C-alpha cells in the first residue's frame, strides 16, 4: 500500500495536508480499511479548538467505534458536511473526498513530529 507523499501522518492513523497556515485532516486508507464499512462520522463543530493528539470526533463502522485524534492543534474552520449523508466516502477516498475537517494551524512546529509517507508505510507494514 502506498500513501501520498505530500501528507504527514500520525501514529493514530490520521493524515494532515498543509496549505499555508491551514491544514486539511482525515483518516488514512489503512485506518479506513481496518475499520471496515464506515456508517457514521461524528464531526467536530466549526469553531472548536483541537489540540494535538486530543479526540475531536468519532467514526463508527459496522464492527467498531473509534475516536478521532487530531494530528495537529488548531481551530476548526470547516467540516466535510458530505460525510453526514455519505460516511462511506472515508472508505472510498480517504485522502480525497473523505477529508474530515479543515483547521487554522496554531503551531506548525508540531508537523515535525509527524511521519512522512515512507515512515508511515513502515509503521503500517
Amino acid at each position, binding site marked *: 500500500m502506498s500513501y501520498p507523499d505530500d501528507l504527514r501522518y500520525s501514529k493514530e492513523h490520521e493524515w494532515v495536508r498543509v496549505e499555508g497556515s491551514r491544514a486539511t485532516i482525515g483518516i488514512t486508507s489503512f485506518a479506513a480499511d481496518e475499520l471496515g464499512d464506515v456508517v*457514521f462520522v*461524528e464531526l467536530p463543530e466549526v469553531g472548536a479548538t483541537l489540540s494535538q493528539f486530543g479526540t475531536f470526533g468519532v467514526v*463508527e463502522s459496522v464492527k*467498531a*467505534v473509534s*475516536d478521532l485524534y487530531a494530528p495537529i492543534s488548531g481551530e476548526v474552520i470547516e467540516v466535510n458536511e458530505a460525510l453526514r449523508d455519505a460516511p462511506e466516502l472515508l472508505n472510498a477516498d480517504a485522502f480525497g473526498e473523505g477529508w474530515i475537517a479543515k483547521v487554522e494551524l496554531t503551531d506548525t512546529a508540531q508537523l515535525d513530529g509527524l511521519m512522512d509517507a515512507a515512515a508511515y508505510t513502515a509503521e503500517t507494514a
Partner: protein
Amino acid sequence: MTYSPHTDADRAQMLDAVGVSSVEDLFADIPAAVRASAWDVPAPLVEQEVRAELARLAGRNRIPEVSFLGAGAYRHLIPSVVGEVIGRSEFATSYTPYQPEVSQGTLQSIYEFQSLICELTDMEVATASHYDGATATAEAALMACRLTRRTRVAVSAGVSPDYRRVLETYCSGPGIEVVTVPVRLAEGEDGTTDPAAVQALDDVACLIAAQPNYYGQLEPMRELADAAHAAGAQFVAVVEPTSLALLEAPGAYGADIVAAEGQPLGIPINFGGPYVGLMAARMASVRQMPGRLAGATRDAQGRKGYVLTLQAREQHIRREKAASNICTNQALMALAATAYLTAVGPNGLREVAELSMTQARHLAGALESAGLAERRFGGTYLNEVALRLPNAARRHATLAERGIVAGHILERDEPELRDTLLLAATELTTDDDIARLVAGLEQTR
C-alpha cells in the same frame, strides 16, 4: 427438562477435572481469618412451617381499603390479558438476549413497545426501556449533556423529589452541576415552574420539567420548551403516560427528550418495583441515547426480522465511552406496558384518563363543598390535586388507622406546603371511596 441436583459423583468428577480434591480446596487462597465461620441462620423448616411464617409476615402488611395515594405511582385496572401475556414462559423466564437474533420474539416485543411509546409521545425513537422513571430522567439529563457538550442541568422543582435525588446521584460522578428552578408555591400562585426563572439560565444542557408536575398541576410546557431552546438547551419532558391520551404530546410542544415512569401502563403498584422507565427522543439524537434499541430490518432473503441496533453506543462495545453503563432494560415490564396499551387501545386509554380526571374533580369538589378542604393552588390539575385542610398530618394518620390513605403529605417534601395533602384519583376510585374519605374527615374535624 428435569431438575437434577449435583450428586456426589458429579461433584467428584468436576473436582477431578479442575484438579483439586475437595470443594474446600477451591477457597484455599482466601485466608481463614476473613472467611465466615458460622452462619447464624435459623434451623430449616418444613413446607407448612414456611407457609405459616410467610403468612404471618404478610399479615403485617396493612392493605388500605381506600387509597388516594399517587405521587408518582398510580393504581389502574390491569386487564387479565396482561398477566397472561407476561406469564408465558417464553417471556417470563428469558433474560435480556445476549445473542439477540435468535430471540426474534423478544426483539419483536421490544420493537412493538418502542413503537407504542413513540406513538404515545409523538417522538421519533424510543429505547427498549430503563429501570424506572427516575433513572430514565437522569439518563435523559446525561444525554442532554452529551448532545450540548455542557455540564450543567436545570431541573424544575415540580419534578418528583425522588427523581431529583436520583438525578443528583447520577450527576455527582461525572461532575455535572444540577440547578433547581423554583416552582411558584406562594399563596394564590398556581404551583408551576416560572418560565421567567428559566430565561435567567444560560449554559445549561437541558431544562427538565414534569407534566403534570409533582403537585398535580399542569405546566406551561410550550413556554418552558421555548425558554429552554432560547438558552440553547434541550427540553426534557417528564410525563405521566396515561395523561398523554388527553394532553398535548411532548413531541408537539417541542420536547427534545421524553422520560416517564411506565408503571401506570399495566403494572401493579409495588414498593420497590419492578417498574419500567420510558425514554423517547428525536432521531437526530439517537446516537446519544442510552441503553438498548431494537430495530426492524429484512434478512438476506427479504424476510422481516428484528435486531438490536446501534449497539456501538453500548457499553459492551465502547465501555468507558458508552452512552450509558447501564444497558439493562425492563423487558418484562415493557411487555406488560405493550400488552396493556394494546388491550385498552387509544380509546380505552382516553377513557382511563378521562375517568381519572373526572373522579379527581369529584373528590376535590366533595371536600370543598363540605367545607373540609380547599385547593392549595390555582391553575389546572388532571387526576391529582393538592388540597389544604387543618391538621392534615394528624388526620391523615387517624384515617390510615381506619384503612383510608388520604393521599401524600406534601409537607414532607416541601416545608412551605403545610397542611397540604396530595390526593390522586383514577378510574378505580369509586364514589363510595370519596364518600368514605369525606365521612372520615368529618369525624376528625
